[in-house]
């Protein structure tokens, strides 16, 4: 078993990557514009439904049921898909899933596969795997195509090219397409993508997709999309391979009545996304004659074993948490060093990677001010701040015990455990007033305080703390 590719090899820790990203003013402008637009739209879409909070609670409960009975539902799904002519595969990790897809494509003699946007296949690095073995993966979602043609990495769950504006996209298309767009009007850019992909859709033998949901009872698989590229891939090729995380299940068809309301309004802020496709196994004479479903673990069962961390497996990949996150808005998604950026990425990526001794993974739960905006908008009520602090504790456990931070924390703890020591520390601290200027503030502290005083003044500790004043006046 190789390394889990869910975090990108060689990525710097979050603070270092963020520093680079913060210096990119174009990036910040693009992100601010995009996230501001979508935040307002989402709020309007959600406000239309009087029962939104009840839908969230139902969504949370359905997913909790799935996680508590995952084995039962997976077996049920397998039976239903098989009964309808599909073939189910199981993959413990990225390597295993990639090999299944590659073997299937090769068996069909395909040197090219068309792809529907899929987080699962991005997570396992399927494109790199196929390309290294002579099979060309063609991303057909507009944003994925922008990333692929720009030799770039994704920076958002829903809109992987959110960090690019229209003129940058025109540049990328102009370099990579036979018929380059003649303007940066989004309509023209969309038209260019249409022409670029049209022939590939009509001639593709094999398609690869992810799944937004799969219904255990019926074996039905659901893909939610906007452009119609998904429908093209799901309908036209002879063979369809769907790679799906094992947590993407819902028990019954009825449960979709909750998620088909929660997802579009949370993600693209629409009442409904343009296209949702549902298929069950194989339908003779309509769509692919061969259907393979790959059930992917890749760190999910390990995540399931963590009582607090497992709530990340409720995620339906809407990306509402990214769009409201003040940290994401400033750093962009690539700073997280994973296909799962933003608040959900900060709790999901380190868990899937499964190695808290990895400095980059362990830096992700700290990439948050714990403002809680993510929890507020999450359609399945993932308490992201709770999971973040929980994973911070796991990161601390995995770290050496004698770091400067650990020592500072334990000495502060020692002080706070005893009011006399605490008061003594206040008295000692009040000596800091000799560092202060005439306005009573300190402009420069030694490290690590320098991280504060590089941009902020800090008040000197006053001569008399409140408790000393209380003792003097009221004691």
């Amino acid at each position: 078993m190789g390394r889990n590719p869910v975090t990108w090899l060689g990525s710097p820790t979050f603070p270092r990557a963020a520093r680079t990203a913060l210096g990119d003013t174009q990036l910040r402008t693009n992100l601010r514009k995009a996230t501001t637009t979508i935040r307002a739209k989402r709020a309007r879409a959600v406000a239309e439904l009087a029962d939104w909070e009840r839908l969230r609670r139902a969504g949370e409960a359905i997913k909790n049921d799935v996680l508590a009975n995952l084995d039962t539902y997976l077996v049920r799904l397998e039976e239903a898909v098989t009964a309808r002519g599909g073939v189910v595969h199981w993959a413990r990790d990225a390597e295993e899933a990639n090999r299944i897809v590659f073997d299937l494509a090769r068996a069909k003699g395909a040197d090219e596969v068309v792809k529907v946007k899929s987080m699962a296949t991005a997570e396992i690095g399927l494109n790199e795997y196929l390309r290294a073995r002579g099979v060309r993966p063609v991303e057909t979602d507009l944003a994925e195509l922008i990333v692929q043609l720009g030799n770039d990495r994704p920076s958002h769950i829903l809109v992987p090219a959110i960090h690019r504006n229209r003129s940058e996209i025109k540049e990328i298309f102009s370099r990579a397409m036979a018929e380059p767009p003649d303007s940066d009007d989004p309509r023209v850019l969309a038209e260019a993508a249409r022409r670029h992909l049209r022939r590939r859709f009509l001639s593709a033998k094999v398609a690869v997709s992810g799944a937004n949901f799969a219904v255990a009872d019926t074996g039905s698989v659901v893909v939610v999309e906007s452009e119609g590229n998904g429908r093209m891939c799901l309908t036209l090729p002879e063979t369809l391979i769907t790679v799906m995380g094992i947590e993407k299940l819902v028990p019954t068809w009825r449960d979709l009545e909750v998620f088909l309301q929660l997802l579009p309004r949370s993600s693209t802020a629409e009442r409904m996304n343009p296209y949702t496709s549902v298929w069950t196994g194989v339908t003779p004479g309509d769509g692919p004659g061969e259907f393979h479903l790959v059930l992917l673990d890749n760190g999910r069962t390990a995540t399931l074993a963590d009582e607090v961390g497992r709530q990340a497996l409720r995620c339906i990949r809407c990306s509402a948490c990214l769009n409201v996150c003040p940290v994401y808005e400033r750093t962009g998604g690539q700073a997280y060093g994973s296909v799962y950026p933003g608040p959900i990425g900060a709790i999901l990526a380190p868990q899937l990677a499964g190695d808290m001794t990895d400095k980059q993974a362990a830096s992700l739960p700290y990439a948050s001010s714990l403002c809680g905006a993510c929890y507020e908008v999450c359609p399945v009520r993932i308490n992201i701040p709770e999971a973040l602090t929980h994973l911070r504790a796991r990161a601390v456990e995995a770290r050496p015990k004698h770091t400067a931070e650990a020592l500072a924390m334990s000495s502060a703890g020692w002080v706070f455990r005893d009011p006399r020591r605490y008061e003594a520390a206040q008295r000692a601290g009040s000596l800091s007033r000799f560092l202060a200027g005439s306005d009573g503030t300190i402009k420069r502290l030694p490290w690590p305080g320098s991280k504060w005083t590089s941009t902020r003044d800090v008040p000197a500790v006053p001569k008399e703390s409140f408790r000393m004043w209380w003792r003097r006046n009221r004691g």
Partner: protein
Amino acid sequence: MDSARSDILARIRAVPRRQPAPVPRDYDTARSVEDPVGLFVERVEDYRAVVRRVSEDELPQRIGDCLARRGVSNMVAPPDLPESWRWAGTRWSLDEPPLSLSEVDSADGVLTGAAVAIAETGTIVLDAGARQGRRMLTLVPDYHLCVVRADQIEVSVPEALRRLDPTRPLTFVSGPSATSDIELDRVEGVHGPRTLEVLVVDI
């Protein structure tokens, strides 16, 4: 592969579990509005699709108007499309025997009925059943004219799902093909039909 299956199931079963609380179903499973058809029309229009309300009697003429306005010369349709819907001003290719992909690709448009519609979200659901044909027909041509009967319109998503058979191939269509991938701003028209027109037949 068998060992992967048993390994994954074993890992799941190794996790101590508690049965969670039952799913609260106190959200709206039905919503009533004064004019579901009017709401449907308004919501479909929000996606920048063209919607017209017509009576049963005038339907054939109105289909003709749409096709004439668009100047189509070559339409595809499911095999069971009613004879009266086939406007004489264009050539019709019915999907029986099955049309080739290139035949469908060279058509100017497709005319179908629908299975169910959702007023609140402005959605049409196709289930490959009566008057709809297989999925490819409504996907490849650039123009989709869809006839929805007023009694097929449900108000909310839960009500609509109840009328559908999940084992049929389903396509939920909410407006024409669109993308939000450029600066998170919606633009209509990428790969799927770039023009969606809907005729709502009042019963």
